């Protein structure tokens, strides 16, 4: 078991918000890759299934000092407090329809197991989980473009980003066939990563120092000095995670040169940010 842990991957992502243009390619690539359905009116964003959602952030200043940044938000694949795999959603699912792959760090969602209690959705502060309020329906004939690698979901179950796990499965199949033990960085990339025309998304194994994502994030393997639940905080001062203080330990990291953007990644009491930003990235161990 221990040996397996040493070998374990921890797939994660870093998204450069300065490069992100908010174009929406990642969203569509995700929908197309993962057989996400669509319905007549998708403008109610509270019942519109987009595993990858791009949020628009503003600095709140008035004309002409306004600034905008787009923040793509897939499932954060939280490791939970102390990164033990008890993400907010996994720990609450009553029927074990979602679990933590300790070999990949990926939070699964099994549609055929889920019975639609939606507790996980309540538990997720990122709104990364979506419920199939309707039966998925494609216009006549259009179901022909559905990919067999991802099962279409039925009404009444929760779904979310899987880090395109089927691509990992496919890459591993090839590796098995070719007699290799493991896969290369380029063999497993999510659909959003490959689609991003700005190259803002980098995906790979956070545990592997040769992977680009590790090199950008430089995750701190030790618990944060101010919050023992937080593990894997980035040692790059320009990198942050969403709601890191909650101890969810997401595997999606964001990169921005702009301070106001980094500040919006979490909630701070008055004056707290000024103190924290100076400490950011300098852990006691690092």
């Amino acid at each position, binding site marked *: 078991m221990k040996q397996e842990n040493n070998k374990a991957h921890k797939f994660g992502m870093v998204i450069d918000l300065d490069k992100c243009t908010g174009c*929406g390619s990642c969203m569509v*690539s995700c929908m197309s890759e993962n057989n996400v359905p669509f319905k*007549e009116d998708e403008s109610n964003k509270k019942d519109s299934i987009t595993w990858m959602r791009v949020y628009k952030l503003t600095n709140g200043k008035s*004309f*002409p000092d306004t600034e905008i940044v787009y923040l793509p938000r897939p499932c954060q694949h939280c490791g939970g407090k102390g990164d033990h795999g008890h993400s907010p959603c996994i720990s609450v699912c009553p029927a074990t329809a979602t679990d933590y792959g300790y070999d990949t760090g990926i939070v699964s969602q099994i549609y055929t197991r889920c019975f639609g209690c939606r507790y996980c959705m309540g538990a997720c502060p990122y709104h990364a989980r979506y419920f199939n309020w309707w039966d998925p329906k494609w216009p006549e004939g259009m179901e022909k473009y559905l990919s*067999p690698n991802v099962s279409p979901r039925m009404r009444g179950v929760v779904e979310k980003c899987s880090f395109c796990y089927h691509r990992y499965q496919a890459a591993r199949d090839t590796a098995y066939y070719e007699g290799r033990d493991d896969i290369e960085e380029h063999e497993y990339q999510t659909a959003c990563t490959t689609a991003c025309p700005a190259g803002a998304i980098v995906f790979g194994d956070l545990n592997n120092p040769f992977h680009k994502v590790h090199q950008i994030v430089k995750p701190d393997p030790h618990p944060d000095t101010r919050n023992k639940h937080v593990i894997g905080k980035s040692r790059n001062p320009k990198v942050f995670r969403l709601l890191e203080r909650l101890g969810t330990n997401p595997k999606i990291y964001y990169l921005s040169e702009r301070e106001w953007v980094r500040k919006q990644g979490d909630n701070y009491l008055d004056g707290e940010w000024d103190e924290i930003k100076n400490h950011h990235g300098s852990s006691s161990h690092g």
Partner: protein
Amino acid sequence: MKVDRRSFLGLGLGAVAGIAVSPVGLKLTDDSSIWTQNWPWTPVPVDGEVTYESSVCSLCPGSCGISVRKIDDRPVKIEGLADYPVNDGGVCLHGIAGLQYLYDPARIKSPLKKNGDKFEEISWDDAIAIVADKLADIRKKGSPEKLACIADKEQGSVSGLFKRLLKTFGSPNFYTMPSLESYLEVTAAAMHGEGKTIAFDLENSDFILSFGAGIIEGWGSPVNCFKANASRKERHAKLYQIEPRLSNTAANADKWIPIKPGTQADLALGLCAVILKNNLFDSNATANFKGGFHKLAAILQKNYALSKTAEITGVKAVDIEKLAILFAKAKMPVAVFGHGRGDGAQSLKELAAVHTLNCLVGNINKKGGTFVLPKNEYLEFPDESMDSIADAGFAKSKTGRYVNQLIEKVNASSQPAIEALFVYNTNPCYSLHDPKSVKQAFGKIPFVVSFSSFLDETAKEADIILPSHTFLERLEDVPSCAGLAKSVVGLTKPVIEPVFNTKNPGDAVILIAKALEGSIAQSFEWEIYDECLENITSGIWDSLSEDGHVVISDGPGESTAVNVSFLADNPVTIQAQGDYELTLIPIDNMRLINAGTTASPFAIKTVSDRVLKGSDIVIEMNPLTAKGLKDKGFAILTTPMGNARVMINLNEGMMPGVIGMVEGLGHTLNTKNMSNKYVSNKGVNINDLIGPVIESGSGLDAAFGIKAKISKA
């Protein structure tokens, strides 16, 4: 033996116990839940062998290489093609969603003939025969010039076939819709001579000064621009964005310079004035200037003094001066024009003014600057045979200079100015300003033939529809254009058997030509379009068909003369129509398409609820402009052209006094038995609210917006 209550009790208990011990309960419980996991109405995709096919996307002028993933013979996903010279693996959301067009509910499934207000399906043979008969009649009457064609673009073999058909028929009336490429050609024609086009080497420039060009809003070749923009960070290149609204490009830029709408030309000339005044121009370059350089300089000093430019544009004088110096002193600066996507209305004054900046700093035909290139000519059509009718008709002058004038002429004359019209791959009844008048003109044309794949606004006005394959079903050459620094010809390949009874438009043209017989038929000697393509691209066919693309040129051309006579005549700046207090300007949103095509259901799904809410369009305005109107409240937007009910989005990123409305909504793709409810009847078509404003001298529709007022709904 008396059967009493206890016997029944025993019977009942025994039955219950028997069933309980048998596997029935367990199995049924299990199976009923498994049934919910495999509801027969939830589709199960069929598995098979995965293969990838390379092709080129021709949804927009970007012409990106795509890789289509297929399961057996079923395409399931479109991705960017790695190492393709245009997009190198990147791909935009519309390209990815391309498969949705294949199965679009509004696709035309077979040739249609209008009967009253309905369409009837007819066979291809009948359809071609009807078209040929009609055309033969026109020719018999001796006015072959009364056949016109509107296509999306000038380049490519299919447009070439249309042009060839018109020419051999005897008509000069081939029109293209306004597009960035057409503006590039107009600018090049005005300043460098006919037959040329302009390209911007954004990925090598260190200072991009964009006059509203939506570098990441779909301008030019979108993915190429996305990449050029993204690489700025590593290259330490700067992007300054000049426009009234904090667009995504402005937000992503190093600096956003808000400017009063419609005054970009003035700012550009103001910058020229500063550069000239401070001797910051490249004197080697200005040596090439012709057509009254000194006259222009004098006009600039007189009309575009700093304070005056500041007053006109709303940009502070110091900022203008700083900007001019920054631009002129950059290693390789480039100034870029074209509001948003660059295919909307434009004035030649603005195009020329911005390009003059490029000419002044001497970046023409230098790496990282602007390239003045010959038009992408790689097609070698054999000489056409013309009969006397054709010669006479083709020699006549065009009915109008641009599409707008054509529409105007048709509407103005009582006799049909045009007898028959072909519309190919474009949707003027939606995307030209004031579509109502366009539809009116279409109504006056006795015979309209559409080659559309979808029953769009224009196809609905047609008398005959000869439906086209989508780009995934056909072979076609796709030349890059739209300001791309590399000139590349890609090959779109059929990745799936045609889903419906449609044809490659090239084939349809060949069939029509053959049916017309005589010299026309002689000019179309090919059996099918595929043969024609191979034939006319024979110079590059081998590598085109093998590699899927050919790079024709990859760098700057030779130095060239600059003609500034248009500006030296001191043209007036176009003003917005009307006299309301506010100005309505169009917003280009990457997630929508503002050309004729509708955005796909997936793309529409990504559109923010601050752009489209239900079927209501959301307009953007500064809270200062709102005057009591509430965020998310409703209002009536009125322009001289009409009014619309809109939802309000109070946005600090809008210049006060300006209202922004997104382009690409308000499609009406529905008839009695065909509709695409996923993309149709959503919001308002902004073109309904804007009328054309023609720039004198150039003849271009230069309406950058329109005056408007807003009141509570």
